[in-house]
């Protein structure tokens, strides 16, 4: 990202007699305008992260003060903890489902909406409006109505029309059908947002490209494959990255769907890393382990972001 910063023109201010006074006023205004942001970020990002980093090398149970240095103990504990490793597997699995599905669905919706003229605004609104709903509310609807596992639950009513038996969606470990609920929930909430990004990308494609294609006799599929997709390259990379990073930080829906364990059973709750961190830091008051976990996750997210950038050729142009 830092590559985008242009070096300031060093020779901008030629020496003049009034230069000193004007500079002083500019510096004053700059300080007034950026000061609050610099102080706020300093406190809530730099101090917070620095302090937390030190805490991750401390035995900090029930305290946030430093003094019980334990080296890498917290990190070792984390990486040896089955629950933490399971949480990483959980989120990896979640990512494998949610990223491609959301990507394809949002692109398809955008193409569909872009190809109709009458009623486009209406359909765009309908697909976008779930983004107004919080994960808590969506989890409520999914857990208590759509996938409640009762014969009167909406998913089972619909399944019944096709002769399927009622499925206990959220309380069954084998096969893990709860993924259907988890994935559809996030898909419903987020697909409209990415659809908007793809729509913006689609509308930036010059119509002359398609006209040229038609002169060459391309089919609709060829036009999509050889004009639309390449033109959407930058948008696609951005969308993929956004979906991926958001998925890795999933918390709300897991917390609200499974906070009491898989509904109605005594099996272990499905915990993504953020829920694990929440339990360590807030439940067990173990701020050392909680901090260490935050840094492990940060490193994982950064590595994945860079890797994905490599794979799809992000930053080639820079």
């Amino acid at each position, binding site marked *: 990202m830092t590559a985008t910063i242009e070096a300031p023109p060093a020779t901008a201010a030629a020496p003049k007699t009034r230069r000193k006074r004007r500079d002083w006023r500019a510096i004053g205004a700059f300080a007034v305008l950026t000061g609050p942001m610099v102080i706020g970020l300093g406190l809530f*990002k730099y101090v917070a992260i620095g302090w937390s980093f030190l805490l991750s090398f401390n035995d900090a149970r029930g305290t946030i003060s430093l003094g019980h240095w334990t080296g890498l103990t917290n990190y070792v504990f984390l990486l040896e903890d089955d629950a933490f490793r399971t949480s990483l597997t959980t989120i990896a699995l979640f990512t494998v489902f949610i990223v491609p599905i959301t990507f394809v669905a949002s692109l398809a919706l955008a193409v569909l909406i872009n190809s109709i003229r009458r009623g486009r605004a209406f359909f765009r609104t309908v697909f976008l409006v779930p983004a107004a709903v919080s994960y808590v509310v969506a989890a409520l609807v999914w857990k208590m109505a759509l996938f409640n596992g009762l014969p009167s639950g909406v998913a089972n009513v619909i399944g019944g029309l096709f002769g399927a038996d009622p499925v206990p969606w959220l309380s069954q470990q084998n096969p893990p059908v709860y993924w259907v609920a988890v994935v559809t929930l996030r898909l419903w909430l987020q697909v409209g947002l990415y659809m908007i990004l793809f729509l913006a990308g689609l509308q930036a494609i010059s119509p*002359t490209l398609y006209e040229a294609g038609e002169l060459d006799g391309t089919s609709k599929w060829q036009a999509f494959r050889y004009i639309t997709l390449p033109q959407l390259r930058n948008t696609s990379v951005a969308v993929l990255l956004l979906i991926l990073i958001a998925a890795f930080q999933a918390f709300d829906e897991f917390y609200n769907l499974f906070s009491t364990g898989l509904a109605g059973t005594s099996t272990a709750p499905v915990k993504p890393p953020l829920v694990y961190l929440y339990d360590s830091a807030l439940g067990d008051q173990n701020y050392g382990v909680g901090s260490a976990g935050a840094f492990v*996750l940060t490193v994982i997210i950064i590595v994945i972001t860079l890797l994905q950038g490599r794979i799809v050729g992000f930053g080639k142009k820079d």
Partner: protein
Amino acid sequence: MAVLTAPPPPAPVRAGRKPGALAKAPKYVLASVLALIFLLPFYIMLRNALMTRQQVSSPDWSWLPDPLSWVNFGDLFADPSVPMAHALGNSFLVAIVTAPVGTMLGSMAGYALARIDVPGRRAVFTYILVTLMIPQSVTFVPTFVVVGAMGGVNTEWGIIAPNLFSAFTVILFRNFYLRFPGEIEEAGRLDGLGYLGVYRRLVLPNSGSMLASLGALMFIESWNAFLWPLVIGQDPSSWTAQIALSTFLNAQQINLPALFAGALIIIAPLVAMFLLAQRFIVSGIAASGLKE
């Protein structure tokens, strides 16, 4: 691709065959079916919020309860274990402070970074940019440590303060002001306005659409926020509406229709925003998606 040099037609007339209404029909059928699926959860919320407790747990499907039980909305606020009215008040306070203040702080810093050339400007920009590398929600433990040390646990300001400072908003505003026409500022200077005067009297009034777009996004984000309010607001007195609803959802005894009534009330302000101010929301989403 050499064909591209052909001059573009004056109007976006579609070349080739003109699809008739019939050819378009499958697309509309598909879009309509999808629309029904997307609207289903809203319908379920409405239906269940108007049922009695017997009806909602009945094994038989019904499209709409008869008669409608409006009493659930009253029950929602009558439950002493979940202070829903107070929580809605908290949510409103948090969003109504976070959105304008956070947007203003972003605009101020973004403007200075884009238009006021002082030594050290690049360093300040890098300082702000670096904070974007740490994923937002992972920082809840560090932020809790600091806000906790400042005495912000169980307070409204503790919920609000860390979210006022968004590096991301600064970057978006900086990009916006980099493209800002310079004549406006020059005219202001000629009229004897200083840097701050130009910003306050001329730049800010011309940033309306950007302020509205990013302000709307911040309002939505802070109204729907869950993890941070959950972490910092542990006492019922500092619960936001999302936390109250979640507590309600995970309680031992659940009054289901009242729960759905609560969901309806919580989504109402944002759904209204999406319908009335969609232009700003859409341009905000488009701007923030293209941060790369």
